[in-house]
């Protein structure tokens, strides 16, 4: 193979101009990206890219299994992941039982927020993860045509909350995981009913706005709050891992450990029966 060996080895003015044109093209593409046609084009490209990458991923999966399970460390990691899932499921069951007890007192409020179709789910496969560094988003193979809508909660292993749908296409949707830096959901500490806001930190979850002195301890479960109607109440977010209180602060620093292993999500449940804010809208600004 001979690749144009008569050309000069260092870039000419034409070459530099060509690279400069690429930069200009990038800026132009970015400037045009708010246009609806850009969304349409990217969706069309996604319809080609996602299956191609998914096929490559399926082909490589057996190799990945062999590599990831090679050696004791990998085996222990896999066993640990399995045990974590099991603990997550058990804790979810426990949390559900406890929540049922609490729900006797708060059933009316929670039911109103959850809405009548809260038990309707659809199973979705995780097609790809967002390749942009720092983002924790998943691409699912279900979209508007399958009843998925923006704002619907997505559950991972152990029926714990994994994230929320943020974008929807005809047959694709994008989910922002709880650990994403742009994620924020209303939460409540199950034992003390202390409310807070669960923010993603990139690799974990932080519960903010928990007052100093609130009854919260490591091991407490954190659930979603129906406050605001953006999520149904009672979904398990995670477990409090550390609580730090400093006198000079207004709020305690509470870190929450997710019970689902977000890095290994392959299938999720989308709560297609839930309509964010439906209860509030129907209430017509009830007190």
């Amino acid at each position, binding site marked *: *193979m*001979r*690749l*144009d*060996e*008569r*050309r*000069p*080895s*260092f*870039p*000419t003015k*034409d*070459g530099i101009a*060509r*690279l400069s*044109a*690429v*930069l200009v093209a*990038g*800026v*132009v*593409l*970015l*400037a*045009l*990206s708010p246009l609806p046609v850009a969304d349409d084009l*990217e969706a069309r*490209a*996604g319809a*080609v*890219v*996602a299956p*191609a*990458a*998914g096929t*490559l*991923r399926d*082909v*490589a*999966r057996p*190799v*990945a299994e062999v590599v*990831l399970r090679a050696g004791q460390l990998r085996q222990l990691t896999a066993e640990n992941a399995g045990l974590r899932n099991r603990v997550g499921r058990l804790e979810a069951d426990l949390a559900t039982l406890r929540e049922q007890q609490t729900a006797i007192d708060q059933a009316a409020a929670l039911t109103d927020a959850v809405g009548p179709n809260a038990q309707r789910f659809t199973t979705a496969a995780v097609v*790809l*993860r*967002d*390749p*942009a*560094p*720092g*983002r924790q*988003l998943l691409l699912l193979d279900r979209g508007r045509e399958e009843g998925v809508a923006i704002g619907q909660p997505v559950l991972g292993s152990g029926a714990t909350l994994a994230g929320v749908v*943020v974008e929807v296409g005809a047959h694709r949707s*994008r989910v922002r995981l709880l650990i994403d*830096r*742009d994620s924020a959901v209303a939460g409540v500490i199950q034992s003390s009913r202390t409310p807070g806001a669960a923010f993603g930190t*990139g*690799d974990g979850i932080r519960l903010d706005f928990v007052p100093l002195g609130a009854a919260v301890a490591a091991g407490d479960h954190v659930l979603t709050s129906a406050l605001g109607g953006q999520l149904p109440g009672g979904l398990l977010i995670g477990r409090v891992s550390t609580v730090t209180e400093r006198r000079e602060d207004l709020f305690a620093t509470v870190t929450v450990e997710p019970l689902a292993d977000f*890095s290994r999500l392959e299938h999720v449940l989308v709560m297609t029966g839930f309509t964010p804010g439906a209860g509030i809208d129907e209430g017509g600004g009830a007190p």
Partner: protein
Amino acid sequence: MIALTVAALAVAAALVQVGPLSLFTVDAIASPLLPIAVVAGWGVARRADETWLALLLAPVVFGAVSQDRVGVFVIALWPTAAFALLARQSDRDPAGYTPRRLVAAAAAAAAGAACYVTLLAVAGGHVASIATQARTILVAIAITAVAATAVAVAVWPWRPRRRGLFE
């Protein structure tokens, strides 16, 4: 034709990165940035301007599956070609001195990867994540540099060479 070849390599690298590679890594940051390795390795071993089409097509793969737009990825990938260009400009001997050229490919890839991560973090409003995930990012940059060196070695037989009078 050459630009198409590099573009095909870069698109394949992007597909591998968003597809199979995600099975081996738990975080996009922790994985090697394969299109950057292709652009840097090819750009230093041969010519940086031959990667112009790759700089436009590889981002389409990323933009199609990411919340970030294609234009952001084009701009984020571009500095890699610029660093490859600079590295190539500083070594005008067509035959080149192999180890030096390979080090240049690794350096261009490392600098390009650093710019790529920084620009995407800025675009996504996650600048603080650079500090908190510095160690992971450095590992990814190092792996990308090694991958770029491998690409440069692979492309090396087709580097531009000084032709003799009767060749």
